[in-house]
């Protein structure tokens, strides 16, 4: 992360592409993505359709609320159209193009600095109900495999992870994400204030981080 920190200036929030490239370094699977700074960049994109375009700026915390997310872009023509539309709305900003992932059970994985115990990892089922049900659990870093398994069996909605009404989730893929997030957190425990991987799609054979943000101290 040192290379990001160098160019941060007064910025406290990492851009989505920055967080995702960091996740990749720690073998945490994410969507495919490409940063576009101008229209020419659109030609270079080799990601498979359908695609997603998002505003990529620390200025916007809730991207959907400002119309900064466009899902299901099916062709290059449409991509150019959406790009032009975004340019009008968010002049001077960068955009990120991502692969549109097949949905799964939505989970949230996060890191937060606790004044007593230091950096802690959070896991819970995600989506819009996360903050209502508060069905999340924490562990202090570092965690081991048993901690990861305990976290999964501690949330109230644990049945969803165990195959409820035909919903299938790869427990191993989730455990790997939790362990790798722990490794990432340990390496940057003095820099990270908070991190959200939300949502993470938990699917039958794998899991993928769809959106990611990080705030540094």
């Amino acid at each position: 992360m040192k290379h990001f920190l160098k160019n941060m200036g007064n910025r406290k929030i990492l851009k989505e592409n920055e967080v995702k490239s960091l996740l990749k370094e720690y073998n945490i699977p994410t969507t495919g993505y490409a940063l576009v700074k101008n229209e020419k960049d659109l030609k270079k994109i080799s990601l498979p359709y359908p695609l997603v375009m998002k505003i990529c700026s620390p200025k916007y915390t809730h991207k959907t609320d400002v119309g900064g997310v466009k899902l299901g872009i099916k062709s290059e023509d449409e991509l150019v159209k959406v790009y032009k539309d975004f340019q009008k709305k968010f002049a001077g900003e960068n955009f990120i193009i991502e692969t549109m992932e097949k949905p799964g059970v939505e989970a949230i994985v996060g890191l937060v600095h606790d004044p007593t115990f230091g950096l802690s990892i959070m896991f819970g089922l995600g989506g819009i109900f996360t903050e209502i049900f508060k069905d999340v659990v924490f562990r202090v870093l570092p965690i081991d495999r048993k901690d990861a398994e305990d976290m999964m069996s501690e949330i109230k909605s644990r049945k969803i992870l165990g195959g409820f009404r035909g919903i299938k989730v790869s427990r191993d893929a989730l455990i790997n994400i939790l362990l790798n997030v722990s490794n990432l957190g340990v390496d940057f425990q003095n820099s990270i204030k908070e991190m959200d991987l939300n949502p993470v799609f938990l699917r039958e054979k794998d899991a993928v981080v769809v959106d990611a943000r990080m705030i540094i101290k």
Partner: protein
Amino acid sequence: MLLLKKGNPCLKANRDLITIFIQSYSAYKLMSLERFFNPKSIAVIGASRTPGKIGYETLKNTLVYDYKGKMYPVNPNADEILGQKCYPNVKAVRDKIDLALIVVPAEMVPGILEECGKKKIKNAVIVSSGFIEIGEKKLAENILLIAKKYGIRILGPNTMGFKNPVDGLDASFVFGMPYKGSISVVSQSGALSIGVIYHALLEKIGLSKVIGMGNKLDIDDADIIEYLEKDPSTKVIAMYIQAAQNGKKFVSAAKKCSKPIVVIKAGKTKAGAKAVSSHTGAMAGSDKIYDGVFKQADIIRVNDVTELFDVSNALANQPPARGNRVGIISNGGGAGILLADACSDNDLEVPYLNNYTVKKLKKILPPLVTPGNPVDLVADAGFHRYEMATKAVLEDKNIDGVIVTCVHGGYARPREYTGAVLKMVELQRNDPKHDKPIISCWIGGREIEEVTEDLKNEYIPVYQDTTRAVNAMKALVKEGSRLGLHNKGI
């Protein structure tokens, strides 16, 4: 020293020498805590002639019980207090002093601590208040510097002190001595620890140490966990915590601890009104993180003093369960069903008994009664039926622990039932084949209370209601899991 004996090959390297130094320093610190709570000689600095003053009460408390060590009251204005020769200062005491109980006003503490350092006193309880708790940070820092200079370990300041019932030592200013036992209570609140002592007295629960932590200026929760883990008279560490002093050190000490730790953590609803900018940040009240920490370190979290003792008493005086399958024995349907309900609410199973056990039970039950689990011994049960049923269920391969209950029905003979439990616990304690927990649940007012004294006198956990009994069993199941005993069989 140990490393030298093992012939560590890397001794030459400086780094290893430093490691050894740190290890031996930690060992020294541990040793010094051993002496801290088992001193052979004590100076009460600030001993007073005036009854009711803390300096008087502290000295008196040290004298009341059967503590065998030497006492040195220190007060420059008195020749004798409570029949004890008084000294003007610690220097005037010829003998070695293991522990100083400091009860002088806060501003005098640095000077007194200097004198203690020069006298080579290594352990000090600073009872005096008036430090960090009222914003006197400088004074506290000054004290810590002096302590570091002379290698003095400090309990407090602003603490009630400690009690060591095993050695009959009351090193505190508040009156009251618990029975001897194997639960050590560590409390950040002095007043609560007094409440705890009287609660334990009433319940006839024996304690090993009661330690008031005060401001945790030097000795913190992690230090105490490390000390109590090595203390031979402690089996269970029961803690009341408002805030852990050094989070990472606490987690690591608790994880390493081989003995069970039970914690009340106060301050659950601390307003988390800070500005947060992520979902994770918004979710992370400090209590949620404490919850995670406790689970990570296999600490059992409880909600109040009653529960603290219910759980600690079971852990101290009954073996861990090797699984979560519970057998229930009762003399009436209701209590048995309530226990079964509480088990299922707490992820404990109440399985079918095996055929062999059913056959054994049929022999002792009236002809029309079908043995099940819960086993209903029916209203006219006596000593024999209770004894045989408890033994049969205890020996059942499908069962990891037994809850024996007695309700005060018209025909009931509670004293015969306690007799059966006494006999079964004796068997359990002496025969490894019967090494499964037995929890008693005796329901029904004062007469029943009196009967349960028989059990309490033998350190057998007995509870006055069903959820409390099940909670105790659940703790023994958790302890079995912590120790990796589940599904291992006897």
